[in-house]
């Protein structure tokens, strides 16, 4: 059976792993801080010792987080959709639908034209723009 997954702080976790992870990190960091604070306080300068103890506690946090990182793997599925196989025009149409006409790249300054050409988008954008212009003309 799939473990129950929850969304906590904007990402997916397994609650059992979350409790385990927090127990490990808090269980490492808090005793590390308390013991260090006790030892430094016994050793003299209290204010400075307090700060050093904090540093030890932070190291404890990092160690605890790294241990839980090794024990509990991410609950994410990564898909790498290889470059969209659909027709270029369909993709551009979709973008235009949401954003509005992408315009005629021939109107652009030379630097931007070169950039669009280097991306291999130049002809596709010209075609799309012309198709749109014809369509508009047809409707009127």
């Amino acid at each position: 059976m799939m473990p129950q997954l929850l969304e906590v702080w904007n990402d997916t976790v397994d609650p059992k792993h979350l409790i385990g992870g927090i127990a490990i990190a808090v269980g490492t960091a808090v005793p590390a801080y308390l013991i260090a604070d006790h030892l430094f306080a016994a050793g003299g300068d209290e204010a400075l010792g307090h700060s050093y103890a904090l540093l030890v506690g932070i190291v404890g946090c990092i160690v605890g987080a790294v241990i839980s990182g090794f024990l509990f793997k991410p609950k994410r599925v990564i898909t790498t959709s290889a470059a969209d196989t659909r027709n270029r025009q369909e993709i551009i149409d979709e973008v235009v639908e949401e954003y509005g006409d992408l315009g005629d790249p021939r109107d652009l300054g030379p630097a931007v034209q070169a950039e669009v050409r280097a991306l291999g988008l130049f002809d596709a954008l010209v075609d799309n723009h012309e198709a749109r212009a014809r369509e508009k003309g047809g409707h009127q």
Partner: protein
Amino acid sequence: MTAELIEPVLWAVGMALLSGVLFTGIGLISGTDETAIVAPLALLVILIGVPPAGVLAFFLAAIISKHISHAVPTTLLGIPGDTTAVPMLREAQLLRSLGIPHIALQKAISGGVVSVAIAIPLSIVFALVLTPFAEAIGAAAPWIFIAAAVLVAYTSKGKLAAVAGLVPFVLLIVGLQAFIMEQKEATFTTSFFLGIATGPLIFDLFAALSPAGRRSMQQSGKREFNLAPDVRPAGGSRMPNPFKVLTGKQLAYTGGSAAITSATFVFSPVAMAVLMGEIVGSRVKNGYERLTTVITVRNGTTESTYIAETLIPLIAIGLPLSPMAAGPAGPLFNAPPVYTLDAEAGTTNNLHDLLTTGQFALFSVIAAIIAVAIAYPFVMTNAHRAATWVMKSVSHEAIIAGFAALICVICLYEGGLLALGVTLTVGLVGGLFNRFIGMHAGVQFMGYYVAVLTVPAILAL
């Protein structure tokens, strides 16, 4: 360079290196909100006794490098890297659909670098302009804070609800402070800050513990993330240059909006990023050029607002009078026992008093150069590999576990179990306000200052 400057410069260099590497990494993790992450770590650096030069360099390098690498999840995964990355999301997704996520990324981070170069000198100039008025501003601070709190609340998602929500929130803080005073004859600051900054996390942990809350958080399966394919042209690994990535028009618009947003330091960075993007977008006719220019300008604005909103109040006034200064940069103004802000006397002992304007300029430039030198080439050349590694290897459980432990340790350091109780109380209430009435952490930080500055002033009338 005089001999006394060598030590602080070394601190600045060292802390900027540390923070540049650390936050370039943290920026790759999506959803790592600036307030929740940068504020506690800056606080930590202050509390362990790093000198002022190191603290300033650490903080600036943190925000500069994070606002470069936050573009990686935003453009390659379509999930905002942090709060300020949200305004770039639409352009990022459209460019991703066009099959050119790498262009979105390169434009965004190049805009960031250009913006940093403009915002640092301009923020210092604007601070100098404001300095003569610092005393008057300081004297009026209690009333400025309440006005700012109302304004920030009204412009948040909660609108009037967030304004009204200030009343119970401020009373909660006043009440807790009174109890702490009675018990310990001292006041807490850090535990309130931590509670506000990590409120949504604390709220979620409580909700996950409750069977009723759990039902609404259930996920039907692992979450799917669609990583854009790596489409960079081969052989493009030479030293990247933002002046080549951006066109002249993009450089001009980014520079212009960085200059404007360096002056408008009292407004929310997200709002300014949205606004600058809209203004620039309305002036660019061609669709392709508009998409790439808007994403450049918006990411540039995330850098300039953060830098200006930190440096101007810090140099000119010493009071956290901007949404940024009250939030992520809060510890630079107020982190007792190291930096203090005396509410009644209106006096401060923080970076404002400990560094001269010349030193601010020097350490800011050091931090900016190091942060850009670390984050920019790294993101330019390794974005795809880094994003894949983070998504596949860094579990969210480990991040939450680390933060839970950090909260416990810092609270115990400030005031034992009572401080931990304060953080849990403020975090739970703040997180609830955040999630359900749209009153974000910035409003709550302003609420905190209303409680410690304005309430005593009202009672003294």
